[in-house]
C-alpha cells in the first residue's frame, strides 16, 4: 500500500480521533457515552497506524501526526484522575506513622541531629551562657527580650490570624527547604537540622538565662510537640533523598534516588500537615490569655499524644 492510499483510507478515522482527543484535552472536556465506548479501540488502531507508518517509512508528515495523536490518546486513556484528598485521612493517621516507624534508624539519626544541639544549647543557658551568646546574635536576643520580657504581651500588635499566615509561610517553607536540601547529598538537610537545633536551642537557653521563662515557655509549650517533631520528619524526608544518592544499595544510583524520593515525599507531606497544625496552635492558642499552668499541661499532653501517635498510630488498621 502506498502512502497516498494509506492516507486516503485512514484519514477519516484520524480526523475523528483528533476531534475526540481535542474534546478531552479541554478543561472539563468529556465524551458522550457512545463516543467513549469506541475510544479505546480507536486508540489502539492509532497505535497500529503509527507503527505501520514508521515501519513502511511513510515519512514524518504522517508518523509525526500519528505520534501526536497516540500521545494525546495515551494521556487521555492512561492519565490519573485521582483526587489527592482521596485517602488523605488514611494516609495521615495510618500510613504516615507507620512509615515514620519503619525508618527507625533514620528517625533516631534526625532526632539526634536536631535535638542534640537543641538540648545542649538549652542546657548551656543555665551552665555556660557564653555558648548561647555565640549561637544567637544580638538582634535575635533583642527580639526575644521585646517579645517575652516580663510584663509584655507576647504577640504585641499582630493579630492571631496574621500570625497564622506567617507561621505557615515561614515554618512550612523551612520544612520544604530541609527536604529539598537532601538532593545535595544531604548537606542541605544536615545544615537545616543542626542550624534549626542550634537557633531554637539558643532561644530556649537565652530564655532560661535571661529569665523570660514564664512567657517564653508558656508560649512555646502548646505547639512545640507538633512543630519540632515535624522538623525532625522533614529531616528524614531530606535524608531519604540523600540515601538514594549516597547509599543506593543494590539499585542503580538514579533508580535509588527516584525510589527514595517517593518515600521521602510522603514523609514531607505528613510533616507539612503537622506544621500547619502547629501553626494553627501557635497562632490561636499559644499567645492567648490562658494561664501559663494550663498551657504547660496542654503542652505536655501534646508531647504525650505525638509520641503515642508515632509509637502506636496505624498499628491495628488493616
Amino acid at each position, binding site marked *: 500500500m502506498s502512502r497516498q492510499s494509506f492516507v486516503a483510507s485512514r484519514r477519516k478515522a484520524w480526523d475523528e480521533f483528533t476531534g475526540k482527543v481535542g474534546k478531552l484535552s479541554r478543561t472539563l472536556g468529556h465524551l458522550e457515552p457512545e463516543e467513549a465506548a469506541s475510544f479505546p479501540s480507536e486508540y489502539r488502531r492509532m497505535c497500529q497506524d503509527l507503527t505501520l507508518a514508521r515501519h513502511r*517509512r511513510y*515519512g*514524518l*508528515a504522517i508518523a509525526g*501526526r500519528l505520534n501526536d495523536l497516540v500521545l494525546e490518546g*495515551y494521556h487521555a486513556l492512561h492519565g490519573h484522575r485521582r483526587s489527592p484528598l482521596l485517602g488523605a485521612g488514611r494516609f495521615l493517621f495510618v500510613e504516615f506513622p507507620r512509615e515514620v516507624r519503619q525508618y527507625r534508624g533514620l528517625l533516631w539519626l534526625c532526632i539526634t541531629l536536631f535535638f542534640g544541639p537543641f538540648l545542649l544549647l538549652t542546657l548551656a543557658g543555665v551552665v555556660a551562657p557564653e555558648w548561647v551568646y555565640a549561637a544567637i546574635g544580638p538582634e535575635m536576643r533583642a527580639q526575644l527580650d521585646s517579645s517575652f520580657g516580663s510584663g509584655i504581651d507576647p504577640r504585641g500588635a499582630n493579630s492571631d*490570624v496574621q500570625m497564622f499566615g506567617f507561621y505557615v509561610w515561614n515554618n512550612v*517553607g523551612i520544612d520544604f527547604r530541609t527536604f529539598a*536540601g537532601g538532593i545535595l547529598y544531604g548537606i542541605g538537610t544536615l545544615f537545616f537540622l543542626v542550624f534549626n537545633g542550634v537557633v531554637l536551642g539558643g532561644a530556649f537557653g537565652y530564655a532560661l538565662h535571661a529569665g523570660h521563662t514564664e512567657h517564653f515557655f508558656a508560649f512555646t509549650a502548646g505547639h512545640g510537640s507538633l512543630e519540632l517533631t515535624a522538623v525532625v520528619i522533614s529531616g528524614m524526608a531530606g535524608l531519604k533523598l540523600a540515601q538514594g544518592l549516597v547509599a543506593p544499595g543494590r539499585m542503580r544510583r538514579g533508580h535509588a534516588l527516584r525510589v527514595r524520593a517517593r518515600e521521602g515525599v510522603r514523609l514531607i*507531606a505528613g510533616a507539612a500537615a503537622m506544621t500547619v497544625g502547629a501553626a494553627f496552635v501557635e497562632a490561636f492558642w499559644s499567645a492567648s490569655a490562658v494561664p501559663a499552668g494550663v498551657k504547660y499541661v496542654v503542652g505536655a499532653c501534646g508531647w504525650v499524644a505525638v509520641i503515642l501517635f508515632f509509637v502506636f498510630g496505624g498499628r491495628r488498621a488493616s
Partner: protein
Amino acid sequence: MKLDTLEPVSTPEGAVVALRVAGPVPRALAWGLDLVIRVVGYVAVGIAFGFFGEVGGAAILLVMFAGEWWYGVLFEVLGKGATPGKRMMKLRVVHADGTPVEWGASIIRNFLLAADFLPPPFGAGLLAMLLSKKFQRLGDLAAGTLVVHVDRTRVNVRETGAPPFAPPVTLRPVEQLALVEFAHRTDSWTHARRIELTDLLEPLTSAKGTEGVERVLGMARWVEGRG
C-alpha cells in the same frame, strides 16, 4: 550516535511514541513567564486584600506560600502537565514513561526547585540538565519526570508532479526515506537551496541544478509508488 532529542517510550499497546525533550532555554523562558504571572498575582492579591487589614495580611502570606511552593504542583497535575508559562512555551511535564505527571512526582520536582535554584539562578539545575541525557534538573531526576515539547509542527506534504525516475542503484530503506522526506518538504526551501542539496547527490542523479532536483523528486515518487 544519537543526534536528536527524541526520547522513545513504548505504550502498553506496543506502540513506540517519541517524546521531544525540551532543553534549558524554552524551560527558562517558561519559568520566567511563570515568575511574571506569580508576581502579578501577588501584587493583585496584595492590593485586593490590603483593604482587609490583618486578615488580609494573613491571606497575602498564605497566597505567597501557595504561589511559591504549590503553583507548579497544582497547575502541572490539574492542568494537563503544564503551568501557564509552560503552556505558552508549548511544554508539558510527563513521567519518564510518557504518562501525565502525578501528585507525588510533581511535588518532588517542584519542591526540589529550591535546591536546583542554587547557586542563583539555577546553577545546580542547569548543570544537572547539561550533564543528564534528557535535560533533567535535579528535581526531574528525583521525580523521574521529563519536560517535553507538545507543539505540533507539521510537515505539509506536497505531492510533486515529477515523473517517476528509477534510482540507478538499490537504495537502503533510510536512503529511500531521505528522498521521500526531501520531496515532502521541497516547498519549504528556496530553489537555490533545493539545488544546493540535490547537487550533493550528483553521484546518484548524474545531474546538477534544476535537472538534479527534478530527478531526486522523481526518485522519491518512484520510491513511494503510485496511489
